[in-house]
């Protein structure tokens, strides 16, 4: 039923609960909605095709290359709408014969937290302390109990006398409990050893967060707030592409950088050279030399999750 333009004044004045009046109202509302649709596309600013494509988008590992390409261009259009900037969503596959590992010299870490800020900028994390993948724990010298650690330290100068610093992040376990916990297989381990997330497949149940013994997974309680000019436009589908509220995310060894041969952002930012990154399958790599010649330890090794993140001392 279409809304009548000719309106009876008497009808208007009189309170009328008739069916005719109700249907008239429905007609008016739908006409208004149609008008708005004509001005601006519906579906949250995206086209109907994009909205349907996003809704029916499959799991990353099940998509064909064409479907992935379509998903990538959808993500790029969405970022363009949200931030007004062109981003490149990469889809680089794992490099053959490479398993990534990390080593960190705890006698060199001085608690400057340069790695934390570099990670936030590189990986498009919400600004203003919304989320950090890396926590630098401050411990009393000689204290090995991580329950006593504090990562909210805010001294005028670090390193503090009598303190030591221990950065923790995702350990990229070789037997990751978070992957076992996920009820929808939204997280898995790639052949190069990186535990990744399909953010579009995550239902936000946060089982993985409670399964992780290292508290390395983080939940987007609200929409990540990133200034458009600080958005890192070099992204990866399984890495630092813009996320939304309600999904879990985690450190991915800067997959957008390391699969191109670059080193992770935390390593590049570290001013003391405490961090070492490399290929565990390459017997000549630095990390293999460290594992063979230094005293190394892994956190919570007794849990059997086989972390690929080692700590060593001078």
């Amino acid at each position, binding site marked *: 039923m279409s809304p009548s333009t000719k309106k009876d004044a008497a009808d208007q004045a009189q309170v009328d609960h008739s069916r005719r009046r109700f249907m008239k109202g429905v007609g008016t509302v739908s006409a208004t909605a149609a008008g708005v649709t004509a001005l601006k596309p519906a579906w949250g600013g995206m086209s109907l095709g994009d909205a349907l494509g996003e809704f029916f988008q499959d799991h990353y590992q099940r998509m064909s290359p064409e479907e992935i390409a379509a998903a990538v261009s959808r993500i790029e259009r969405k970022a363009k709408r949200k931030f007004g900037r062109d981003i490149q969503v990469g889809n680089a596959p794992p490099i053959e014969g490479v398993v990534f590992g990390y080593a960190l010299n705890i006698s060199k870490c001085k608690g400057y937290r340069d790695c934390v800020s570099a990670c936030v900028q590189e990986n498009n994390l919400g600004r203003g302390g919304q989320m950090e993948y890396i926590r630098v724990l401050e411990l009393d010298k000689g204290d090995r109990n991580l329950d006593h650690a504090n990562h909210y330290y805010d001294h005028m100068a670090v390193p503090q006398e009598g303190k030591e610093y221990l950065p923790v992040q995702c350990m990229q376990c070789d037997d990751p409990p978070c992957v076992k916990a996920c009820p929808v297989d939204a997280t898995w381990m790639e052949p190069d050893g990186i535990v990744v997330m399909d953010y579009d497949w995550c239902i936000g149940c946060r089982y993985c967060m409670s399964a992780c013994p290292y508290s390395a997974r983080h939940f987007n309680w609200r929409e990540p707030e990133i200034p458009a000019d600080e958005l890192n436009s070099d992204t990866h589908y399984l890495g630092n592409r813009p996320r939304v509220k309600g999904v879990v995310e985690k450190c991915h060894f800067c997959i957008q950088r*390391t699969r191109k041969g670059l*080193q992770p952002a935390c390593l590049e930012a570290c001013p003391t050279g405490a961090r070492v990154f490399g290929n565990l399958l390459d017997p000549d790599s630095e990390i293999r030399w460290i594992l063979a010649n230094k005293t190394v330890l892994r956190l919570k090794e007794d849990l059997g999750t086989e972390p690929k993140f080692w700590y*060593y001392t001078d």
Partner: protein
Amino acid sequence: MTTVTESKPFDGDYGGKPAWRGRPRRRQGDSEEERVNRRWRSVLSCLLLVLPPLLAAESEAPGQKDFTVAPRTTELEHVPCKDCHQYMDPNPEPRQLVDSPHVAEVRHGKADMWCTACHAPENHQQLRALSGLAVDFDDSHRVCRDCHSATYQDWLYGAHGKRVGSWQGEREILNCTACHDPHLNLNVLQRRPVALPGVRAGLERQVHGPAPPRRLWQRKQQAESEESDVTEH
């Protein structure tokens, strides 16, 4: 090719000649060709013994991948040194330098060293290792390793120092002097940390005063009563 011969216990017979005296003599019945072959074999085996150490001296350490060191000369301020030092005689006497554009005193180690311990007095553009080897400023690790051998080993294999660029392929690492100023004590720089972690809403730790009420509506009530207090005064 070596032929395996059955060893028999030594019976004290050298065959008329003492075996230790020099190279094997010409054996009766050997052809000229065999003699030449034998000589070449001994020359080659000598070469095989001598060559590997000679080559290894250049490739630093066994099993070590090649690496390049990020250049330092481009970052130095007071170069070329000879601009000033060609008019000065090298003075080996440790002292406090007056009006020096570079460091005024050497505090390296226990401050018992002097410039000429590492800088070559005869060529101001070079360093000098303990062995007398002339070393470019870009290769200063060849001087540092004379004393800091354990750290040098760690640096050589990647446990110390920092790799720049890519994690794969050719290894480019920072030199010792990129981080450490060899003229000063190796004190660790103290500075303010960056990127204070955020605290999720509601979990803020109360630094001053009593903790806020646990329930949201209680907090709201408290805030309202505080507001009314302010308006009354």
